[in-house]
Each structure stands twice: as C-alpha cells, then as structure tokens.
C-alpha cells in the first residue's frame, strides 16, 4: 500500500471563490523523491497541508501511513514532517535552537508525557545532521533567516517522520547548505522515507531518479520520472500558458 494515497480530493478555503485543489489524485510510495513544481498560487502549499490535515479536504479520500487524514489528522501530523514555507520568529522569542528542535518530538510523545533519553538523543542527532551544533544554545529569533530555516529542518528531522514534506526549504540557504541538505534528504529517501519537496529553484537536486509533479491551478498537469538536470526544462514547458507561466514564451 502507498504511504500517501489521495483519491479525488478537493480542498477549499473558507470564503474562497472556488476549490483550490480540484479532483486531485496522487500516490506516493516508500523511498520516492518527489519534487513538486508549478507557478505561484497553483496550490502546492495547499496540497501539502491537505496531506497532513492542516487544512481539511472537502471531498475525496486522503490516506497517509494507512490513516484517514480527515479522521485522525493529529496522528498523521505526528508521523509526517512538514517544513513550512513562511515563518517569522521575533528576536525576543524565548526559545533556544535546541529547544525548538526538541519540539519536533512533542507531538509523537503525546499529552503529559515527558521527553526521555531517546528524544534528547534524536534532537541531538538532528542538530548534528543539519550541522548547527554551534547554534544549539542560541535564541532562535536572533539567528539569520537561513539559520532559522536549518533549525526548522532539524526540528522535522528530530521527529523521525515516515514522510518528509518540505515547502521551499532552501529559499534562504546558501549553495553549500543546499547541496549538503539535499544529501541528507537523499539519504532519508534511501532509507525509505518519501520526500515531497516544493521548489522553485532546482540547483543541487540529488543524482537519483526524481519524480516530478507539476501543479497548475489546483491540478496535477504532469507527473513523471526524470533526472535532476531535466527538472527545470520540463517545468518551463509545462507552464507556458500565457499569464500563468514561470517564463513567458
């Protein structure tokens, strides 16, 4: 059975004119490396949030890790990593990077349970893996945008998720960090954790078979396997509808 199984889902926001995701079906299996592309407002973020239940689907069926997302979305979110697209932490946020990374474990720990040795170890491993040991005791709000992004990636790695979703995780990262973290995600995929990555820039994609999903106006307009260097060209070709494209042609 697929880890993610969406069958004809619709997602609409309260007060929106029409559904943002329209009759979309998608199956993702173990170890797949999925890159999701498409123009602004195509519904990429909404798709990710429909998968982990942060927004409710209005029609259709969504099953993730064998769980019905509409019924037990808390449980789904405990198992699915999600690096959100936009966040802002004010400079007075009274939390250190270490504490924020640890929070990745809180959902799966459940109410009332306190973190144990293994949770601290997982948080420590995530910090090492992302390479932010030197920031561990810094206040998160005082870090640079890229450093905060790395902390949020570590937060989700500490969760040890069964699926990893990333919404433009590299928008603030330098090329060295991009390549390094792509390697980390490639390794996660190799261990069986499917990666779903929304991106607008495609440098540094790993040299493994990539499944490219292109979204357009709430639908999947292209879903195929390709190599890293082909991604950008395919997306350019897919999005040539005048006015709705990445590059006018």
């Amino acid at each position: 059975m697929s880890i993610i199984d969406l069958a004809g889902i619709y997602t609409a926001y309260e007060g929106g004119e029409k559904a943002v995701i329209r009759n979309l079906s998608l199956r993702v299996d173990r170890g797949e490396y999925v890159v999701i592309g498409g123009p602004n407002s195509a519904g990429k973020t909404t798709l990710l949030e429909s998968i982990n239940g942060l927004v409710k689907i209005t029609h259709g069926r969504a099953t993730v890790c064998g769980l019905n997302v509409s019924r037990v979305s808390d449980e789904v979110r405990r198992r699915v990593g999600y690096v959100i697209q936009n966040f802002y932490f004010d400079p007075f946020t009274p939390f250190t990077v270490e504490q924020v990374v640890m929070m990745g474990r809180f959902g799966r720990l459940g109410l009332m349970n306190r973190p144990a040795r293994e949770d601290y170890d997982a948080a420590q491993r995530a910090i090492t893996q992302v390479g932010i040991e030197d920031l561990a005791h810094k206040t998160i709000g005082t870090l640079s945008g890229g450093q905060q992004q790395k902390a949020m990636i570590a937060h989700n790695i500490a969760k040890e998720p069964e699926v990893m979703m990333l919404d433009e995780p590299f928008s603030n990262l330098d090329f060295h960090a991009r390549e390094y973290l792509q390697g980390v995600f490639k390794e996660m995929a190799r261990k069986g954790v499917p990666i779903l990555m929304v991106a607008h820039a495609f440098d540094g994609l790993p040299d493994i078979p990539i499944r490219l999903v292109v979204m357009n106006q709430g639908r999947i307009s292209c879903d195929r396997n390709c190599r890293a260097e082909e991604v950008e060209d395919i997306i350019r070709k897919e999005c040539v509808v005048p006015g709705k494209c990445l590059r006018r042609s």
Partner: protein
Amino acid sequence: MLETLIENNVVCHALEAMIFASITCSILGVIISRMSLSSIGFTMSHAAFAGAALGMFLGANAQMTAIAFSMVVAALIGPVSDKAKMAADATLGVLFAMSMAVAIFLISYMEYMGKGLSASSLLFGDVVSLYREEIYALAAVCFLAILFVLGFYKEISAIMFNMKIAEAAGIRVKLVYYILLFIIALSVALSLNIVGGLLIFVLLVTPASIAGQFCFNVRSMFIVAPAVALFMSAFGVWAAFEYTMPVAPLVALLLTAAFALSVMLSFKRRINTKMN
C-alpha cells in the same frame, strides 16, 4: 495556613491571599505576555463585574454569580475565536464589551427600581476582609495553574513558540489552548477580590516583563516571574501593615519599581562591539 507564624488574622489572610494570587497570575502572565493576551485582564474583571450585577439583580450571592459568569465567559473565549476566525485578542475585546453591556444594563435597570450596586471590591480589591474560603479557593486555583503548566509544559511551550508549527508537529493545539484560556480566565476571576480589576494587570504583566528583561528562555521565565512576584507581594503586605498603607496599590508600585530597576540593569541590552 500561616497562622502559626503570624498572630494577626487579618495580616495573615492578606499575606496568604497576596502570595497565592501573585504566584498564579505571574506564572500565567508569562504565557499571557508571550501570546499577547493581556486584555484577558480587562475582559475577566468586567465579566466578574457583570456577574456580580446579575447576582444583585436576581437577589443571589453576588460573589458566586460573579465567578459563575466569569467561568462562562472564560469557556467562550477559545471556541468563539475559532468559529469567528479571529485572534483571541479580538474575541476578548468583544466579550469585554458584552460583559460591560450586561453590567451597565442591569445597574441602570436596578437604579430605576431604586436598588444600588456596590462593586468597589471588584474594582479596587479588598485584601483585608477576605473569608477563609476565598483563600482556600485561591490556593486551589494556584495549585491548579501550577499543575497545568507542569503537566502540559511541552505543549504550552510549543504553543508559545508558534501555533502553526506546534500543530504541524502533531500537538493537540486546540485542546490545550482552550484549557489554557479557561484556566487563565478562571485564575484572573478568582484573584480579582485581592487586587481588583484595575490592578490585576500588575500581577499579570509586570513580573513576566521583569523576567523577560533577564531571561533568554521560557523555563527560567516561569521561575523568575513568580519568584519576583512572591517576594514583592510579601514585602508589600508587610510594609503596608507596618506603616498603615493600602496593600494592593503598594504591591503594584513596588513591582513597577522592580520593573524599572530591571530595565536599567538588564544585561540583555548590552551591545557587544568586540572586534576580535
């Protein structure tokens, strides 16, 4: 509870009440100031006021109706914000206005009928004429608040960090947030008799702000804020009785002075221009 230490019953009760109220409010104040919910002070004091007016109107015990009405308003904050898709702060404003309207309506109505309402203890507090039961209730709510913060510490800290990220981590944000709002509102309502609606902010906001001047993380804020509040209110009660001054305003002024001092002394504001 402290009778064995302090012979004068009035001083003893005042001290106990101040201690419980200041610990409760300052711990919750750390959460309140982080989540910009400080208008919960206004809302709850006016809810209690409306409840008292309702009690007088119905000829019931004003104290009991004040608490009952506050609890109803407290329970409404979370669900109303959610349904109306508003920040809790806006909901607090709406509920504040509603409480005020209920109170004014009833008071005006009673005036027509020739009845008056004395609510000065709700507005100004009355720490010298407390009943033993009120102190027990305060002790209970203090205990409840501490238990709640300890029991849900990881959820509360994640919510204080960022609601959306907490939710994405799989934390049951809504449940914890509703309980949080309810406990805060209840604690505020019960503490009103001690310092009154006008000074409740001093206990909610000032100790947390003092802690914020020195602490880089929440855990220490949860310890520093109640410690400062406890010390200042104990000292305030002692000084007030020693030199016959009003208790609550004195504590308020002492805490404010401590805040001013902490701003001046805070090492957080030091600018480091080290070049090597």
